C-alpha cells in the first residue's frame, strides 16, 4: 500500500507542475532564479553577490558595473560588447567560450531554456 502511495503522490506532482508550466513569465522567472540566484540579485539597488546585480542588464555594456570587481577574463573579453539578445544567448550557451577564464562557469545547451531566461532578464527595468 505504501508503494501505491508513492506512485500516487508522484503522479499528483506532475499534475500541479504541468499547470505552473503554462505561465511563460512564471517559468522564466523560476528558471532564472534556479539558474542564477546563487550568485546574482535581480532587484533594483540590490547588492552584488558573487556576481553583479542584474537589474537592467539587457542593453548594458559588458562588465560595466563600477561597483563590481570583474575577473581578468571578463574584462579582457568585454571591449565593445553590449548585452544584447545575441550576446546573452551566446553567454548562457557557454560563458567560458565568450570570456575564457572568467569567474562564471555556466552552460545551457537548451535554446528554449535560454530564451525563457533572457525573456525574464529583459523584464528587469
Amino acid at each position, binding site marked *: 500500500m505504501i508503494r501505491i502511495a508513492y506512485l500516487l*503522490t508522484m503522479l499528483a506532482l506532475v499534475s500541479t507542475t504541468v499547470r505552473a508550466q503554462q505561465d511563460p513569465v512564471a*517559468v522564466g522567472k523560476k528558471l532564472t532564479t534556479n539558474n542564477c540566484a546563487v550568485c546574482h540579485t535581480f532587484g533594483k539597488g540590490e547588492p552584488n553577490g558573487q556576481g553583479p546585480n542584474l537589474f537592467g542588464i539587457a542593453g548594458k555594456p559588458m562588465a560595466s558595473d563600477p561597483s563590481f570587481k570583474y575577473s581578468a577574463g571578463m574584462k579582457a573579453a568585454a571591449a565593445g560588447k553590449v548585452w544584447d539578445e545575441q550576446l546573452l544567448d551566446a553567454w548562457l550557451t557557454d560563458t567560458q567560450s565568450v570570456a575564457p577564464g572568467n569567474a562564471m562557469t555556466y552552460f545551457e545547451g537548451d535554446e528554449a531554456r535560454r530564451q525563457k531566461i533572457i525573456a525574464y532578464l529583459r523584464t528587469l527595468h
Partner: protein
Amino acid sequence: MSETNKLPAASRRNFIKAAGAGTAAAAFGAVSLTARAASDIKFDAEYDVVVCGGGGGGLPCALFSRWLGNRVVILEKAGSVGGTAAKAAFWYWVPNNEPMRRAGIADPKPDYMRYVARLSRPEQYDPSLPKLGLSDWEYEMCEAIYDSASPAAELLASKGALPYRHEAAVPDYWAELPEDKAPRGRVLFPKDGLPSMSDGGRVAIRTMSAAARRDGIDIRTGYRVQKVLVDESGAVMGVESLTEEGTLFRVRAKKAVIFATGGFTHDPELRKNFLHGAVYGGCAAPTNEGDFVRISSALDVQLRNMNYSWMAPISLDKAVAKDGSLSGIFTPTGDSMLYVNKYGKRVVNEKLAYNEVCATFSEWDGAKGEYPNLTLVSIWDQQAQDHCASDDYGSLIVPKGSNDRHVLRGNTLTELAAAIRERMAKHKSALGSADLSDDFVRNLEATIKRFNGFAKTGVDQDFHRGERIVEKLFNGPVSKKADQKNETMYPLSAKGPYYAALIVAGNLDTKGGPKTNSHGKVLDTRGEPIKGLYGVGNCVASASARAYWAGGGTLGPIIAFAYRAAQSANGAQS
C-alpha cells in the same frame, strides 16, 4: 498478492485518478517495482553510471567513472553545475600527498590516524587501542581518506581536470597537537586560483566541468532527482527526476546511481530536528535541502552523524535575507575588534577556526533558560575599518562600496547599542525576541577596557587570542603598529565611530546522512550494501563526527570517496 503487484508502470488512467491526491512534500522516496512493472517502465535515457549532483562530489564521481570507460550522466538540480563547491575556497586536504612525498615531508599513516581519531572522537580516544577508540566503521573510513585522497588528486590533476598547487605553508587547524606529525603541507589548491586562495571553487568547477564536457559526460542541469527506482531484488535500477519545466525524466543506471547531492543546510525542518542549537542556514548551495535524506528514508538506511555539521558563523542579516552568495565568516577580520553577547560580555576567542567558534552560539544557560550567545555582536572601531577590511572569506569588515547591509554604525557606544537594538528588533522572530540587556553599554565599556589591557600586553588572559598557529592564518589583513605585541589584538579607540554586525551559527553544510561503507556503497539496516546505490560527500554520513581537521577537511575526503565509489561501481572488489 498485494495491490502493488497489479500496478503497471504509471498509466494515463492512474494519472487522472491520482491527480490532486498528494502533496509535493511527499514526492521524495523510492519506488519498488515488480518484475513486470520493471520491464514495462519506460526510461528516457540509459547510462552505466548516473551521478546525482554536479558539485564538488558529483563532478569527481562522474570524471572517475568516465575515465573507467563508463557512459555517465550528471543530473544537477540547480540550473548550473558547481553546488556548494563553486562558492568554496576549495582547499583540499590530502594527507601524505604527492608534493609532500617529493619534498620529503613525512606523513606516516599511524600518526595521521591518531590526529583524526583524537579530534573526531575525543571522548573515546585511546592511543593504546588498536583502533584508537574509533568504531570499526570510523576507523575504516578514516583510513580510506589517507589511502585514496592522494591517488584521486593525482588522477584529477594528470587528466587536466583539477591541476593544483601545493600550499605547503598552510597549517592544520590543530598544528600544535602532539598527534599532528605533519602540521603543514597537506593542503592542495586549484592551480589558477588567486594568491589569497579564496576563489578555488570557481576555478575547480570551471576546470572539472570543462574536463567533463571534453570527455563526453552528459550534464543535465535543472533535473531534480526525487526518487530511486528499485527492482524486485532490491537493486537500484535508476532514478526519476523532475525538470525545471515540471516534466519527469527517468534514467536507467546499468551499474550504479551515485548520490552527491549535498546536505540539508537549507531545510529548516531537518536542521531543527537533527542539529544542536539554532543554526540559521549557511553557505551551502541553496539547493542543499536534504533531498537524499528524504529519498533514502524509504530504503531502510542507517542515518548517521546527523548531529554534526561543518560549521561557520554567518551574518544574521544575510541569512535572514536568504542571500544566495552568503559566505561563512572564515576570517574574523580586525585587530581592534571583539565579539560580545547580548550582555556586552566577551565569551569566546574570536580568532578560533570557524567550526570551533560555533560551539559558543549553542551554549545553554540552564538557570536562565536561554541561549545567552544565540547571536553575538562583532564590534570594531575606525582603525579596524580602515586597515582590516576585506571582500574575501566572509569578512564582516568590508571595504567601501561592498555589500555592507549587515554593518551597523554609531558615533558612540550608546549610539551603536541603539542601532544594534533596532536591528535585533527587526529580526525579533528569528531571535526568539532576544534583546540587549539593560546593562549592555556599561558591560561593553568594561569589556573593552579589559580587552584593551590584553591588547597592550599582547596576552589575552581570558581566551588566549592569537596564541595558536591557525588563529594567525585567519586573522585577515592588519596594519602592523609599532606598539602592537599580538597581531590579532589592538586596543579599541576611546572615540567613535564604532561599527557592529550580528552573527549567528551557520553551516558550510551538514555532514550526516545514510551510512556508507568506505567504497561509498549505501548500507541498509543489516549493514548490507543496497545494490547499485552509492553516496559521496555531504549527503552521506561523515566519520569525522564533530571534527574539522584542517582547511580542505571537507573536499579532500570527498574526492577520496568519489574515487573509491567510482572504482567500486565499475566492478572493483569492495
